[in-house]
């Protein structure tokens, strides 16, 4: 019922166009995550859905209702801000009940709804505190509680966890996932954290410079990216790309000692440049003579990252599961399974399948 649908949505600030005609449909109850590099328009798009930014062109529907020109307060959405945006002069309880109060709900209804939300978020003990007296994670929970209380059909999150420290971020991430499971509302979530996007999303929308690059399930994007940008963007550490040239139906990779990579994808014509992409965990190294040097090896306990420098100066990251000490500066041989390699057109950067 309360899916969100964007049709040819455009945003201009004066002359500069920030969103270039975005079409997107988010289903009822779906958890949709916007990712993309800084400045690509994630926040802008979210704020347009919220009604905090005017839509220059196109149409926004929430639950089959055209809300393009409705006021923010009439769209039935709730938003959680990066800085929480709690009202510092109100207690937790007042913060959470404020929206209902402004809409003239009776006192006891407010009280019961706030009570319910605070139970879900385990905030009961803090109801009479001011935000100042809360930790970051608690504040974030209050911000979420404030959104829940109003019982909206769509939740919007703009990098809600980026002000928390690493540990808390993990906890809150799990909390949000659980919340989504429980209340089942449509959620749209902006982040630039890989892990958040991968773990939370039903559907990831990858944006670049105001345009959608790809939409899909997290693992689909991970396994089957449409282009080099998405491939490089999803997954951490990033996918390694090495330049290659089409030669005799295969790809020759000069950086890896002119290795010939065979593949069944539709390669472009002879001599055409392509990129070969391999994820760090699909690379393996053995000591041996080559022009690839180990720059730094980092042990994280359990896994290690090897930072390699190839002869032409480009870099590779290899994830290994061993803790052996390899002297830095050693030369190494790099290998990978051809089935794990992805190929991208050297010019359009589109995936070759």
């Amino acid at each position, binding site marked *: 019922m309360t899916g969100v649908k964007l049709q040819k949505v455009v945003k201009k600030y004066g002359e500069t166009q920030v969103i270039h005609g975005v079409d997107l449909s988010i289903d009822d109850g779906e958890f949709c995550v916007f990712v993309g590099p800084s400045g690509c328009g994630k926040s802008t798009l979210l704020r347009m859905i919220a009604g905090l930014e005017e839509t220059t062109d196109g149409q926004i529907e929430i639950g089959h209702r055209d809300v393009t020109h409705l006021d923010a307060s009439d769209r039935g959405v709730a938003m959680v801000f990066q800085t929480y945006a709690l009202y510092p002069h109100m207690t937790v309880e007042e913060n959470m009940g404020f929206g209902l109060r*402004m809409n003239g709900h009776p006192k006891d209804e407010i009280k019961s709804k706030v009570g319910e939300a605070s139970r879900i978020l385990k905030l009961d003990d803090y109801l009479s505190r001011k935000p100042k007296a809360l930790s970051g994670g608690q504040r974030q929970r209050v911000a979420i509680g404030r959104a829940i209380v109003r019982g909206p059909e769509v939740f919007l999150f703009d990098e809600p966890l980026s002000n928390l420290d690493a540990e808390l971020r993990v906890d809150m991430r799990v909390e949000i996932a659980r919340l989504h499971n429980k209340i089942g509302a449509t959620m749209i979530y902006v982040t630039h954290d890989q892990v958040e996007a991968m773990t939370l999303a039903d559907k990831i929308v990858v944006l670049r410079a105001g345009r959608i690059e790809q939409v899909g399930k997290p693992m689909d994007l991970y396994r089957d990216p449409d282009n080099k940008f998405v491939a490089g963007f999803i997954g951490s550490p990033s996918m390694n790309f090495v330049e290659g040239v089409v030669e005799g139906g295969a790809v020759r990779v000069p950086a890896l000692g002119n290795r010939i990579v065979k593949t069944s994808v539709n390669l472009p014509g002879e001599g055409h440049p392509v990129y070969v992409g391999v994820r760090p965990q699909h690379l393996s190294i053995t000591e041996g003579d080559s022009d690839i040097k180990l720059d730094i090896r980092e042990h994280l306990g359990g896994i290690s990252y090897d930072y390699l420098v190839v002869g032409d100066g480009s870099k590779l990251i290899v994830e290994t599961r061993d803790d052996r000490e390899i002297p830095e500066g050693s030369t190494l041989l790099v290998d990978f399974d051809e089935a794990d390699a992805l190929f991208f057109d050297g010019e359009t950067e589109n995936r070759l399948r």
Partner: protein
Amino acid sequence: MSNAPQASARAKTFRPGFMARNRQVITPLLFLTPGILFFLFYVIFPVIQSFNLSFYKWDGLGEAEYVGLKNYKKLLTDRAFEVSLWNNFKWLILYLLAIPAGLFIALFLNQTVTGIRLYKSLFFFPFVISQVVVGLVFTWFYDPTFGLLNTILEQFGLEPLNVLGDPNLATYGIILAGLWPQTAYCMILYLTGLNAVDPEQIEAARLDGAKGWRMLWHIIIPQLRPATFIAFVVTIIGALRSFDLISIMTYGGPFGSTRVLSFYMFEKALSEYGFRMGYGAAIAVVLFVIMLAFIAYFLWSMYQDEKGAR
């Protein structure tokens, strides 16, 4: 002979040691000395002297005569003192109107239309102008024969008013003149305060359905607390220090009805028929005690802020 080098060697190692160990105390002391000396001589000692002087009878020329609390006793029955005190309270209360007025204008001007910067600065004008000039300007404004006020009243068919000549109106007339620059001041404070209001909170409140006055009341004004605090402090201080305007506009008249403590003390101590220094000092002490309540309040809230800080 043989002792000398030894002694100096010891001194050499000792002195830097002492300096080094106390660098964190000596440096600030050196930096503070000139400021503190100035301040002691011109502010702290005089305050003490004034307290002391208030127990004396002195005409500023001859010998001072110790009279104990007599000056204060006299204040109790001094009608002019009573009037001054009341007027001071009127000033205190009414001057505070500058705060809502300043807020109102600030809200009016907090836009981004072209030329708004110029408007803002022009609105701020009255604050920059000397109170002497403000006083003159308003004296003419109120002038019973040709003043703009009466010209306007006449347009509406109303009786002319002699604002500054009417003992019941004069104080309010002066306060109004004072409110003019003070409102401008508060306006600036609120303009910058409004700038600092967290836009995300406003957005959150918009999503929560707060609009217009309710937004102002529930979200904006609470966030303007720092600006309000400052506005409050400066307005109170301005009210208690009011001297220039009274001196220029009515000289305390008509028949003393616009005196406030600060003016009365000047009158008693240094004006043509005054030169009762002790009595003047006693008035100043009373004024000081009133102000002390506000100073204490201010220091207390500063202390609250400082406690948490580094």
